Protein backbone atom coordinates (compact mmCIF):
# COMPACT_ATOMS: atom_id res chain seq x y z
CA UNK A 1 0.00 0.00 0.00
CA UNK A 2 2.80 2.41 0.87
CA UNK A 3 4.38 2.17 -2.55
CA UNK A 4 1.50 1.11 -4.74
CA UNK A 5 0.53 4.56 -5.90
CA UNK A 6 4.00 5.33 -7.13
CA UNK A 7 2.54 5.44 -10.62
CA UNK A 8 0.22 8.19 -9.57
CA UNK A 9 3.07 9.92 -7.82
CA UNK A 10 4.96 10.06 -11.09
CA UNK A 11 1.91 11.54 -12.66
CA UNK A 12 1.61 14.03 -9.82
CA UNK A 13 5.10 15.20 -10.57
CA UNK A 14 4.06 15.87 -14.12
CA UNK A 15 1.09 17.91 -12.96
CA UNK A 16 3.16 19.87 -10.48
CA UNK A 17 5.93 20.53 -13.00
CA UNK A 18 3.35 21.86 -15.45
CA UNK A 19 1.96 23.96 -12.67
CA UNK A 20 5.38 25.49 -12.02
CA UNK A 21 5.89 25.94 -15.75
CA UNK A 22 2.58 27.79 -15.84
CA UNK A 23 3.77 30.20 -13.21
CA UNK A 24 7.08 30.75 -14.92
CA UNK A 25 5.33 31.40 -18.22
CA UNK A 26 2.98 33.89 -16.68
CA UNK A 27 5.67 35.31 -14.47
CA UNK A 28 6.05 38.16 -16.89
CA UNK A 29 2.37 38.96 -16.50
CA UNK A 30 2.63 38.90 -12.75
CA UNK A 31 5.74 41.05 -12.89
CA UNK A 32 3.96 43.58 -15.07
CA UNK A 33 1.06 43.79 -12.64
CA UNK A 34 3.45 44.10 -9.78
CA UNK A 35 5.39 46.94 -11.38
CA UNK A 36 2.16 48.59 -12.47
CA UNK A 37 0.69 48.79 -9.00
CA UNK A 38 3.99 49.57 -7.37
CA UNK A 39 4.51 52.57 -9.64
CA UNK A 40 0.87 53.56 -9.77
CA UNK A 41 1.32 56.87 -7.95
CA UNK A 42 4.25 57.72 -10.14
CA UNK A 43 2.19 57.13 -13.25
CA UNK A 44 -0.69 59.19 -11.86
CA UNK A 45 1.59 62.23 -11.60
CA UNK A 46 2.28 62.08 -15.28
CA UNK A 47 5.16 64.26 -16.23
CA UNK A 48 8.60 62.88 -16.16
CA UNK A 49 9.63 60.32 -13.65
CA UNK A 50 12.78 61.17 -11.86
CA UNK A 51 14.83 58.84 -13.93
CA UNK A 52 13.96 60.78 -17.09
CA UNK A 53 14.37 64.23 -15.56
CA UNK A 54 17.87 63.34 -14.52
CA UNK A 55 18.55 61.65 -17.76
CA UNK A 56 21.85 62.91 -19.13
CA UNK A 57 21.58 61.26 -22.46
CA UNK A 58 24.11 60.89 -25.19
CA UNK A 59 23.68 64.32 -26.75
CA UNK A 60 22.19 62.94 -29.93
CA UNK A 61 18.73 62.81 -31.47
CA UNK A 62 18.26 59.39 -29.94
CA UNK A 63 17.79 61.06 -26.53
CA UNK A 64 14.61 62.80 -27.77
CA UNK A 65 13.32 59.54 -29.19
CA UNK A 66 13.92 57.79 -25.89
CA UNK A 67 12.36 60.52 -23.75
CA UNK A 68 9.38 60.80 -26.07
CA UNK A 69 8.83 57.08 -25.90
CA UNK A 70 8.96 57.07 -22.11
CA UNK A 71 6.56 60.00 -21.88
CA UNK A 72 4.12 58.37 -24.25
CA UNK A 73 4.25 55.13 -22.34
CA UNK A 74 3.66 56.82 -19.02
CA UNK A 75 0.74 58.74 -20.44
CA UNK A 76 -0.84 55.52 -21.68
CA UNK A 77 -0.30 53.72 -18.41
CA UNK A 78 -1.84 56.53 -16.41
CA UNK A 79 -4.94 56.62 -18.58
CA UNK A 80 -5.30 52.91 -18.30
CA UNK A 81 -4.90 53.09 -14.54
CA UNK A 82 -7.63 55.71 -14.28
CA UNK A 83 -10.28 53.90 -16.25
CA UNK A 84 -9.50 50.33 -15.37
CA UNK A 85 -8.37 50.58 -11.81
CA UNK A 86 -11.29 48.73 -10.27
CA UNK A 87 -11.43 45.98 -12.80
CA UNK A 88 -7.65 45.63 -12.70
CA UNK A 89 -7.82 45.04 -9.00
CA UNK A 90 -10.28 42.27 -9.55
CA UNK A 91 -8.42 40.90 -12.50
CA UNK A 92 -5.20 40.96 -10.55
CA UNK A 93 -6.74 39.05 -7.68
CA UNK A 94 -8.26 36.52 -9.97
CA UNK A 95 -5.14 36.22 -12.07
CA UNK A 96 -2.76 35.85 -9.18
CA UNK A 97 -4.72 33.32 -7.22
CA UNK A 98 -7.99 32.42 -8.82
CA UNK A 99 -6.87 31.15 -12.21
CA UNK A 100 -4.09 28.84 -11.01
CA UNK A 101 -6.26 27.48 -8.24
CA UNK A 102 -9.13 26.75 -10.59
CA UNK A 103 -6.92 25.35 -13.28
CA UNK A 104 -4.99 23.04 -11.08
CA UNK A 105 -7.76 21.81 -8.88
CA UNK A 106 -9.41 20.80 -12.12
CA UNK A 107 -6.23 19.35 -13.62
CA UNK A 108 -5.25 17.45 -10.52
CA UNK A 109 -8.69 16.00 -9.94
CA UNK A 110 -9.22 14.98 -13.52
CA UNK A 111 -5.64 13.78 -13.82
CA UNK A 112 -6.33 11.18 -11.18
CA UNK A 113 -9.34 10.01 -13.13
CA UNK A 114 -7.42 10.01 -16.38
CA UNK A 115 -4.44 8.24 -14.87
CA UNK A 116 -6.64 5.57 -13.48
CA UNK A 117 -9.11 5.11 -16.26
CA UNK A 118 -7.61 6.24 -19.49
CA UNK A 119 -3.90 5.71 -19.32
CA UNK A 120 -4.44 2.09 -18.50
CA UNK A 121 -2.96 1.83 -15.03
CA UNK A 122 -6.34 0.59 -13.86
CA UNK A 123 -5.76 -2.55 -15.94
CA UNK A 124 -2.38 -3.10 -14.29
CA UNK A 125 -3.76 -2.44 -10.83
CA UNK A 126 -6.76 -4.71 -11.33
CA UNK A 127 -4.44 -7.56 -12.27
CA UNK A 128 -1.92 -6.70 -9.53
CA UNK A 129 -1.95 -7.83 -5.90
CA UNK A 130 -3.98 -4.83 -4.79
CA UNK A 131 -7.46 -4.94 -3.30
CA UNK A 132 -10.15 -2.60 -4.70
CA UNK A 133 -10.21 -0.77 -1.38
CA UNK A 134 -6.48 -0.11 -1.51
CA UNK A 135 -6.84 1.10 -5.06
CA UNK A 136 -9.58 3.53 -4.06
CA UNK A 137 -7.49 4.69 -1.12
CA UNK A 138 -4.49 5.35 -3.32
CA UNK A 139 -6.59 7.32 -5.80
CA UNK A 140 -8.12 9.39 -3.05
CA UNK A 141 -4.76 10.13 -1.47
CA UNK A 142 -3.24 10.93 -4.86
CA UNK A 143 -6.06 13.31 -5.65
CA UNK A 144 -5.60 15.22 -2.43
CA UNK A 145 -1.85 15.23 -2.71
CA UNK A 146 -1.93 16.97 -6.08
CA UNK A 147 -4.72 19.32 -5.08
CA UNK A 148 -2.88 20.08 -1.85
CA UNK A 149 0.46 20.87 -3.50
CA UNK A 150 -1.02 22.99 -6.28
CA UNK A 151 -3.37 24.83 -3.97
CA UNK A 152 -0.68 25.57 -1.43
CA UNK A 153 1.66 26.98 -4.08
CA UNK A 154 -0.95 29.08 -5.83
CA UNK A 155 -2.53 30.45 -2.66
CA UNK A 156 0.90 31.31 -1.27
CA UNK A 157 2.00 33.02 -4.47
CA UNK A 158 -1.32 34.83 -4.80
CA UNK A 159 -1.09 36.03 -1.24
CA UNK A 160 2.54 37.13 -1.47
CA UNK A 161 2.11 38.90 -4.80
CA UNK A 162 -0.96 40.80 -3.69
CA UNK A 163 0.66 41.57 -0.35
CA UNK A 164 3.69 43.03 -2.10
CA UNK A 165 1.76 44.94 -4.72
CA UNK A 166 -1.41 46.22 -3.13
CA UNK A 167 -1.45 45.71 0.59
CA UNK A 168 -2.41 43.56 3.54
CA UNK A 169 -6.20 43.94 3.27
CA UNK A 170 -6.19 43.07 -0.35
CA UNK A 171 -3.88 40.09 0.24
CA UNK A 172 -6.13 38.81 2.98
CA UNK A 173 -9.07 38.94 0.65
CA UNK A 174 -7.13 37.16 -2.09
CA UNK A 175 -6.00 34.50 0.38
CA UNK A 176 -9.46 33.69 1.64
CA UNK A 177 -10.95 34.09 -1.80
CA UNK A 178 -8.54 31.41 -3.07
CA UNK A 179 -9.39 29.01 -0.30
CA UNK A 180 -13.11 29.52 -0.76
CA UNK A 181 -12.67 29.01 -4.48
CA UNK A 182 -10.83 25.74 -3.93
CA UNK A 183 -13.52 24.48 -1.58
CA UNK A 184 -16.29 25.39 -4.00
CA UNK A 185 -14.55 24.00 -7.08
CA UNK A 186 -13.58 20.73 -5.45
CA UNK A 187 -17.04 20.31 -3.96
CA UNK A 188 -18.86 20.92 -7.23
CA UNK A 189 -16.48 18.82 -9.35
CA UNK A 190 -16.75 16.01 -6.83
CA UNK A 191 -20.53 16.12 -7.11
CA UNK A 192 -20.23 15.94 -10.89
CA UNK A 193 -17.86 13.03 -10.65
CA UNK A 194 -20.20 11.18 -8.33
CA UNK A 195 -22.98 11.77 -10.85
CA UNK A 196 -20.70 10.60 -13.64
CA UNK A 197 -19.88 7.37 -11.84
CA UNK A 198 -23.56 6.86 -11.01
CA UNK A 199 -24.57 7.39 -14.63
CA UNK A 200 -21.78 5.06 -15.68
CA UNK A 201 -23.21 2.43 -13.37
CA UNK A 202 -26.65 2.89 -14.93
CA UNK A 203 -25.24 2.48 -18.43
CA UNK A 204 -22.38 0.01 -18.00
CA UNK A 205 -21.56 -0.41 -21.66
CA UNK A 206 -20.80 3.30 -21.94
CA UNK A 207 -19.24 3.63 -18.52
CA UNK A 208 -15.77 4.76 -19.47
CA UNK A 209 -16.60 7.37 -22.08
CA UNK A 210 -19.73 8.54 -20.40
CA UNK A 211 -18.10 9.03 -17.05
CA UNK A 212 -15.08 10.84 -18.38
CA UNK A 213 -17.12 12.89 -20.84
CA UNK A 214 -19.71 14.00 -18.35
CA UNK A 215 -17.18 14.66 -15.65
CA UNK A 216 -15.02 16.79 -17.90
CA UNK A 217 -17.86 18.73 -19.51
CA UNK A 218 -19.52 19.55 -16.24
CA UNK A 219 -16.22 20.32 -14.57
CA UNK A 220 -15.36 22.77 -17.31
CA UNK A 221 -18.76 24.40 -16.93
CA UNK A 222 -18.26 24.48 -13.20
CA UNK A 223 -15.11 26.53 -13.61
CA UNK A 224 -17.31 29.47 -14.49
CA UNK A 225 -19.05 29.46 -11.10
CA UNK A 226 -16.14 30.48 -8.88
CA UNK A 227 -15.04 32.99 -11.49
CA UNK A 228 -18.05 35.02 -10.40
CA UNK A 229 -18.06 33.88 -6.83
CA UNK A 230 -14.40 34.43 -6.12
CA UNK A 231 -14.54 38.05 -5.17
CA UNK A 232 -18.02 38.24 -3.73
CA UNK A 233 -17.66 35.07 -1.68
CA UNK A 234 -14.57 36.47 -0.02
CA UNK A 235 -16.48 39.65 0.75
CA UNK A 236 -19.39 37.62 2.08
CA UNK A 237 -17.13 35.65 4.37
CA UNK A 238 -15.59 38.86 5.60
CA UNK A 239 -19.03 40.32 6.23
CA UNK A 240 -20.52 37.29 7.99
CA UNK A 241 -17.60 36.13 10.01
CA UNK A 242 -14.67 38.40 9.35
CA UNK A 243 -12.83 35.29 8.12
CA UNK A 244 -13.15 33.74 11.54
CA UNK A 245 -14.79 30.37 11.90
CA UNK A 246 -18.41 31.41 11.47
CA UNK A 247 -21.64 30.22 9.85
CA UNK A 248 -20.40 30.81 6.31
CA UNK A 249 -17.40 28.62 6.84
CA UNK A 250 -19.41 26.00 8.64
CA UNK A 251 -21.83 25.63 5.76
CA UNK A 252 -19.08 25.55 3.18
CA UNK A 253 -16.92 23.05 5.04
CA UNK A 254 -19.89 20.83 5.91
CA UNK A 255 -20.98 20.61 2.27
CA UNK A 256 -17.39 20.09 1.18
CA UNK A 257 -16.75 17.31 3.70
CA UNK A 258 -20.07 15.66 2.90
CA UNK A 259 -19.29 15.40 -0.79
CA UNK A 260 -15.83 14.05 -0.08
CA UNK A 261 -17.20 11.31 2.16
CA UNK A 262 -19.76 10.44 -0.51
CA UNK A 263 -17.03 10.50 -3.16
CA UNK A 264 -14.96 8.07 -1.11
CA UNK A 265 -17.76 5.51 -1.01
CA UNK A 266 -18.52 5.96 -4.69
CA UNK A 267 -14.84 5.64 -5.58
CA UNK A 268 -14.52 2.50 -3.47
CA UNK A 269 -17.54 1.03 -5.20
CA UNK A 270 -16.23 2.05 -8.62
CA UNK A 271 -12.85 0.43 -7.96
CA UNK A 272 -14.52 -2.87 -7.13
CA UNK A 273 -16.64 -2.63 -10.26
CA UNK A 274 -15.83 -4.83 -13.23
CA UNK A 275 -16.76 -4.05 -16.78
Amino acid at each position, binding site marked *: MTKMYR*ALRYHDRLVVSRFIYFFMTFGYGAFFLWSFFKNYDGYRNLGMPESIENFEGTGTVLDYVYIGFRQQRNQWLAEMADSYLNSMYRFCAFFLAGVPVLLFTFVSWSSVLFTDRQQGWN*RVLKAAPVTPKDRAKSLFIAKWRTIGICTAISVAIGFLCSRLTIGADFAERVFFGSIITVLIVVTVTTVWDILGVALGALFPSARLNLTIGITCCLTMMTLAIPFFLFWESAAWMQYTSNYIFGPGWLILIAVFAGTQVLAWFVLKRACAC*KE
Partner: protein
Amino acid sequence: MSEYTDAVRFEGVSRSKKGCLYDVGFSVPKGTVMLLVGENGAGKTTLLNVLTGQYGADQGTVYLFGRPQSDDDPAERARMSVVFDTIPYGQSLNAKQVGKVFAGLYPQWDDEAYNRYLDIFSIGEKQVIKTYSRGMMQKLQIACALSHNAELLVLDEPTANLDPGSREIILQCLMEYMKDGERSILVSTNMPGELDRYADGATMIHKGRVVFSGEIDTILNSYGIVKCGPDEVSGIDRPDIIGIRHSRYSAEVMVKDRERVAARCPGMAIDPATLDDILVFTGAYGEEAAR
Protein backbone atom coordinates in the same frame (compact mmCIF):
# COMPACT_ATOMS: atom_id res chain seq x y z
CA MET B 1 5.26 -23.29 -4.82
CA SER B 2 1.97 -24.79 -3.67
CA GLU B 3 0.21 -27.92 -4.84
CA TYR B 4 -2.42 -27.73 -7.54
CA THR B 5 -3.11 -29.57 -10.76
CA ASP B 6 -4.35 -26.79 -13.00
CA ALA B 7 -2.92 -23.30 -12.93
CA VAL B 8 -6.16 -22.04 -14.48
CA ARG B 9 -9.50 -23.73 -14.98
CA PHE B 10 -12.55 -22.16 -16.61
CA GLU B 11 -15.86 -23.81 -15.82
CA GLY B 12 -18.95 -22.74 -17.77
CA VAL B 13 -17.84 -19.13 -18.09
CA SER B 14 -20.43 -17.04 -19.96
CA ARG B 15 -20.67 -13.36 -20.58
CA SER B 16 -23.28 -11.52 -22.61
CA LYS B 17 -21.84 -8.03 -23.02
CA LYS B 18 -18.73 -6.52 -24.64
CA GLY B 19 -17.29 -9.68 -26.15
CA CYS B 20 -19.61 -12.62 -25.66
CA LEU B 21 -18.52 -15.92 -24.16
CA TYR B 22 -20.66 -19.03 -24.08
CA ASP B 23 -20.08 -21.80 -21.58
CA VAL B 24 -16.29 -21.65 -21.88
CA GLY B 25 -14.56 -24.50 -20.13
CA PHE B 26 -10.95 -25.67 -20.33
CA SER B 27 -7.89 -25.82 -18.13
CA VAL B 28 -4.21 -24.96 -18.24
CA PRO B 29 -2.34 -27.75 -16.45
CA LYS B 30 0.48 -26.73 -14.17
CA GLY B 31 3.86 -26.61 -15.92
CA THR B 32 2.48 -26.28 -19.44
CA VAL B 33 2.21 -23.66 -22.16
CA MET B 34 -1.34 -23.36 -23.48
CA LEU B 35 -2.11 -21.48 -26.68
CA LEU B 36 -5.44 -19.69 -26.82
CA VAL B 37 -6.20 -19.58 -30.51
CA GLY B 38 -8.92 -17.79 -32.41
CA GLU B 39 -9.57 -15.25 -35.11
CA ASN B 40 -9.95 -11.55 -34.34
CA GLY B 41 -13.05 -10.99 -32.23
CA ALA B 42 -13.37 -14.65 -31.24
CA GLY B 43 -13.33 -13.77 -27.53
CA LYS B 44 -9.69 -14.44 -26.58
CA THR B 45 -9.03 -11.03 -25.04
CA THR B 46 -12.42 -11.03 -23.32
CA LEU B 47 -11.63 -14.36 -21.73
CA LEU B 48 -8.21 -13.13 -20.58
CA ASN B 49 -9.86 -10.00 -19.20
CA VAL B 50 -12.18 -12.19 -17.16
CA LEU B 51 -9.17 -14.15 -15.92
CA THR B 52 -7.24 -11.03 -14.92
CA GLY B 53 -10.17 -9.39 -13.15
CA GLN B 54 -10.88 -6.67 -15.71
CA TYR B 55 -14.25 -8.09 -16.73
CA GLY B 56 -16.88 -9.93 -14.77
CA ALA B 57 -18.59 -13.11 -15.94
CA ASP B 58 -22.36 -13.59 -15.92
CA GLN B 59 -22.03 -17.27 -15.16
CA GLY B 60 -19.38 -19.83 -14.40
CA THR B 61 -16.27 -19.93 -12.27
CA VAL B 62 -12.62 -19.28 -12.89
CA TYR B 63 -10.24 -21.30 -10.76
CA LEU B 64 -6.75 -19.93 -10.19
CA PHE B 65 -4.16 -22.25 -8.67
CA GLY B 66 -6.91 -24.67 -7.70
CA ARG B 67 -9.15 -22.14 -5.94
CA PRO B 68 -12.00 -19.91 -7.13
CA GLN B 69 -10.72 -16.56 -8.29
CA SER B 70 -11.02 -13.78 -5.73
CA ASP B 71 -10.82 -9.99 -6.06
CA ASP B 72 -9.75 -9.53 -2.48
CA ASP B 73 -6.79 -11.89 -2.41
CA PRO B 74 -3.58 -10.00 -3.21
CA ALA B 75 -1.50 -13.15 -2.67
CA GLU B 76 -3.32 -14.87 -5.53
CA ARG B 77 -2.74 -11.92 -7.87
CA ALA B 78 0.93 -11.80 -6.94
CA ARG B 79 1.34 -15.27 -8.42
CA MET B 80 0.07 -14.18 -11.82
CA SER B 81 1.54 -11.73 -14.31
CA VAL B 82 -0.15 -10.25 -17.33
CA VAL B 83 0.94 -8.89 -20.69
CA PHE B 84 -1.91 -6.87 -22.20
CA ASP B 85 -2.63 -6.43 -25.89
CA THR B 86 -1.74 -2.72 -25.60
CA ILE B 87 0.69 -1.14 -23.20
CA PRO B 88 -1.17 0.06 -20.12
CA TYR B 89 1.61 2.12 -18.49
CA GLY B 90 1.72 5.92 -18.41
CA GLN B 91 3.25 7.17 -21.64
CA SER B 92 5.38 9.76 -19.88
CA LEU B 93 7.28 7.21 -17.81
CA ASN B 94 10.52 5.45 -18.70
CA ALA B 95 11.48 1.82 -18.12
CA LYS B 96 13.23 2.60 -14.86
CA GLN B 97 10.16 4.34 -13.44
CA VAL B 98 7.90 1.51 -14.60
CA GLY B 99 10.23 -0.89 -12.76
CA LYS B 100 9.82 1.16 -9.58
CA VAL B 101 6.04 1.07 -9.91
CA PHE B 102 6.11 -2.72 -10.26
CA ALA B 103 8.55 -3.06 -7.39
CA GLY B 104 5.93 -1.34 -5.24
CA LEU B 105 3.13 -3.54 -6.50
CA TYR B 106 4.67 -7.01 -6.48
CA PRO B 107 6.28 -8.38 -3.30
CA GLN B 108 8.57 -10.75 -5.24
CA TRP B 109 9.81 -8.18 -7.72
CA ASP B 110 13.35 -8.98 -8.92
CA ASP B 111 15.13 -5.79 -9.97
CA GLU B 112 18.17 -7.70 -11.19
CA ALA B 113 16.08 -9.87 -13.50
CA TYR B 114 14.23 -6.80 -14.78
CA ASN B 115 17.47 -5.02 -15.69
CA ARG B 116 18.72 -8.21 -17.35
CA TYR B 117 15.58 -8.42 -19.50
CA LEU B 118 15.86 -4.74 -20.41
CA ASP B 119 19.39 -5.48 -21.61
CA ILE B 120 18.30 -8.55 -23.56
CA PHE B 121 15.45 -6.63 -25.20
CA SER B 122 17.68 -3.57 -25.83
CA ILE B 123 15.41 -1.17 -23.97
CA GLY B 124 17.06 1.96 -22.60
CA GLU B 125 16.25 2.67 -18.96
CA LYS B 126 15.73 6.37 -19.53
CA GLN B 127 13.85 6.30 -22.79
CA VAL B 128 10.29 7.55 -22.38
CA ILE B 129 7.56 5.08 -23.37
CA LYS B 130 5.80 7.42 -25.78
CA THR B 131 8.90 7.30 -28.00
CA TYR B 132 8.86 3.46 -28.15
CA SER B 133 7.93 1.46 -31.18
CA ARG B 134 5.02 -0.94 -30.69
CA GLY B 135 7.44 -3.83 -30.49
CA MET B 136 9.42 -2.13 -27.72
CA MET B 137 6.23 -1.51 -25.76
CA GLN B 138 5.46 -5.19 -25.99
CA LYS B 139 8.97 -6.10 -24.88
CA LEU B 140 8.75 -3.79 -21.88
CA GLN B 141 5.52 -5.44 -20.78
CA ILE B 142 7.13 -8.86 -21.15
CA ALA B 143 10.18 -7.76 -19.15
CA CYS B 144 7.85 -6.63 -16.34
CA ALA B 145 5.83 -9.84 -16.51
CA LEU B 146 8.93 -12.03 -16.25
CA SER B 147 10.48 -10.13 -13.36
CA HIS B 148 8.27 -10.90 -10.41
CA ASN B 149 8.58 -14.62 -10.20
CA ALA B 150 4.97 -15.34 -11.11
CA GLU B 151 3.71 -18.91 -11.38
CA LEU B 152 1.30 -18.07 -14.18
CA LEU B 153 1.99 -15.84 -17.16
CA VAL B 154 -1.02 -14.58 -19.07
CA LEU B 155 0.03 -13.12 -22.41
CA ASP B 156 -2.38 -11.47 -24.82
CA GLU B 157 -0.84 -11.67 -28.31
CA PRO B 158 2.66 -10.94 -27.06
CA THR B 159 4.40 -11.40 -30.39
CA ALA B 160 1.90 -9.45 -32.50
CA ASN B 161 4.15 -6.46 -33.20
CA LEU B 162 7.54 -8.10 -33.13
CA ASP B 163 10.06 -8.73 -35.86
CA PRO B 164 11.19 -12.38 -36.22
CA GLY B 165 14.46 -11.81 -34.35
CA SER B 166 12.79 -10.16 -31.37
CA ARG B 167 10.08 -12.82 -31.38
CA GLU B 168 12.71 -15.54 -31.15
CA ILE B 169 14.50 -13.80 -28.27
CA ILE B 170 11.25 -13.43 -26.34
CA LEU B 171 10.22 -17.03 -26.92
CA GLN B 172 13.64 -18.19 -25.70
CA CYS B 173 13.16 -16.10 -22.55
CA LEU B 174 9.74 -17.66 -22.02
CA MET B 175 11.15 -21.15 -22.43
CA GLU B 176 13.93 -20.40 -19.96
CA TYR B 177 11.25 -19.14 -17.59
CA MET B 178 9.41 -22.45 -17.89
CA LYS B 179 12.45 -24.58 -17.12
CA ASP B 180 11.65 -25.50 -13.54
CA GLY B 181 8.36 -27.13 -14.56
CA GLU B 182 6.39 -25.28 -11.88
CA ARG B 183 5.26 -22.39 -14.01
CA SER B 184 2.50 -22.16 -16.57
CA ILE B 185 1.71 -19.89 -19.50
CA LEU B 186 -1.59 -19.06 -21.16
CA VAL B 187 -0.88 -17.16 -24.35
CA SER B 188 -3.41 -15.91 -26.86
CA THR B 189 -2.57 -15.59 -30.52
CA ASN B 190 -4.20 -15.48 -33.90
CA MET B 191 -1.00 -16.75 -35.53
CA PRO B 192 -0.44 -20.07 -33.76
CA GLY B 193 2.16 -21.19 -36.28
CA GLU B 194 4.63 -18.80 -34.63
CA LEU B 195 4.25 -20.38 -31.22
CA ASP B 196 3.03 -23.96 -31.54
CA ARG B 197 6.48 -25.55 -31.36
CA TYR B 198 6.92 -24.05 -27.89
CA ALA B 199 3.46 -24.99 -26.63
CA ASP B 200 2.09 -28.13 -25.01
CA GLY B 201 -1.59 -27.52 -25.54
CA ALA B 202 -3.99 -25.41 -27.54
CA THR B 203 -7.51 -24.17 -27.00
CA MET B 204 -9.43 -22.72 -29.87
CA ILE B 205 -12.23 -20.20 -29.41
CA HIS B 206 -14.63 -19.33 -32.20
CA LYS B 207 -17.42 -16.80 -31.70
CA GLY B 208 -17.11 -17.08 -27.93
CA ARG B 209 -17.27 -20.87 -27.80
CA VAL B 210 -14.52 -23.40 -27.26
CA VAL B 211 -13.99 -25.45 -30.41
CA PHE B 212 -11.32 -27.72 -28.99
CA SER B 213 -8.88 -27.88 -26.12
CA GLY B 214 -6.12 -30.36 -25.52
CA GLU B 215 -2.57 -31.36 -26.30
CA ILE B 216 -1.31 -30.01 -29.58
CA ASP B 217 -0.05 -33.39 -30.83
CA THR B 218 -3.43 -34.98 -30.19
CA ILE B 219 -5.23 -32.17 -31.99
CA LEU B 220 -2.89 -32.23 -34.97
CA ASN B 221 -3.13 -36.02 -35.19
CA SER B 222 -6.88 -35.77 -35.30
CA TYR B 223 -7.48 -32.91 -37.74
CA GLY B 224 -6.71 -33.26 -41.42
CA ILE B 225 -7.31 -31.68 -44.82
CA VAL B 226 -9.08 -33.83 -47.38
CA LYS B 227 -8.22 -32.96 -50.96
CA CYS B 228 -10.90 -34.05 -53.34
CA GLY B 229 -13.05 -33.04 -56.25
CA PRO B 230 -16.01 -30.70 -55.67
CA ASP B 231 -18.45 -33.55 -56.16
CA GLU B 232 -16.75 -35.78 -53.61
CA VAL B 233 -17.39 -33.40 -50.68
CA SER B 234 -20.89 -34.79 -50.24
CA GLY B 235 -19.33 -38.18 -49.43
CA ILE B 236 -17.90 -36.83 -46.16
CA ASP B 237 -20.15 -36.82 -43.10
CA ARG B 238 -21.30 -33.26 -42.28
CA PRO B 239 -20.48 -33.44 -38.55
CA ASP B 240 -16.85 -34.19 -39.42
CA ILE B 241 -16.44 -31.10 -41.55
CA ILE B 242 -14.91 -27.93 -40.07
CA GLY B 243 -14.62 -25.91 -43.26
CA ILE B 244 -14.56 -26.25 -47.02
CA ARG B 245 -12.30 -24.31 -49.37
CA HIS B 246 -13.44 -24.50 -52.96
CA SER B 247 -11.17 -23.80 -55.87
CA ARG B 248 -12.02 -24.07 -59.56
CA TYR B 249 -11.52 -27.79 -60.01
CA SER B 250 -11.05 -29.12 -56.52
CA ALA B 251 -11.99 -28.71 -52.89
CA GLU B 252 -10.13 -28.87 -49.59
CA VAL B 253 -12.12 -30.02 -46.63
CA MET B 254 -10.93 -29.62 -43.04
CA VAL B 255 -12.10 -32.60 -40.99
CA LYS B 256 -11.77 -33.06 -37.28
CA ASP B 257 -11.33 -36.87 -37.28
CA ARG B 258 -9.15 -37.78 -40.17
CA GLU B 259 -8.89 -41.48 -39.29
CA ARG B 260 -12.64 -41.90 -39.38
CA VAL B 261 -12.91 -40.01 -42.66
CA ALA B 262 -10.08 -42.12 -44.11
CA ALA B 263 -11.95 -45.27 -43.11
CA ARG B 264 -15.20 -44.08 -44.67
CA CYS B 265 -13.70 -42.55 -47.81
CA PRO B 266 -10.74 -44.79 -48.60
CA GLY B 267 -9.76 -43.17 -51.91
CA MET B 268 -9.29 -39.63 -50.62
CA ALA B 269 -5.94 -38.03 -49.86
CA ILE B 270 -5.82 -36.57 -46.35
CA ASP B 271 -2.98 -34.26 -45.34
CA PRO B 272 -2.15 -33.41 -41.73
CA ALA B 273 -3.32 -29.96 -40.63
CA THR B 274 -1.54 -27.25 -38.70
CA LEU B 275 -3.13 -24.96 -36.14
CA ASP B 276 -2.95 -22.16 -38.70
CA ASP B 277 -4.91 -24.34 -41.15
CA ILE B 278 -7.57 -25.08 -38.55
CA LEU B 279 -7.86 -21.39 -37.78
CA VAL B 280 -8.16 -20.48 -41.46
CA PHE B 281 -10.78 -23.13 -42.19
CA THR B 282 -12.81 -22.34 -39.08
CA GLY B 283 -12.70 -18.59 -39.51
CA ALA B 284 -12.86 -18.18 -43.27
CA TYR B 285 -14.61 -21.31 -44.57
CA GLY B 286 -16.58 -22.52 -41.58
CA GLU B 287 -19.77 -20.74 -42.63
CA GLU B 288 -19.76 -22.56 -45.94
CA ALA B 289 -19.41 -25.90 -44.17
CA ALA B 290 -22.35 -25.02 -41.93
CA ARG B 291 -24.57 -24.43 -45.00
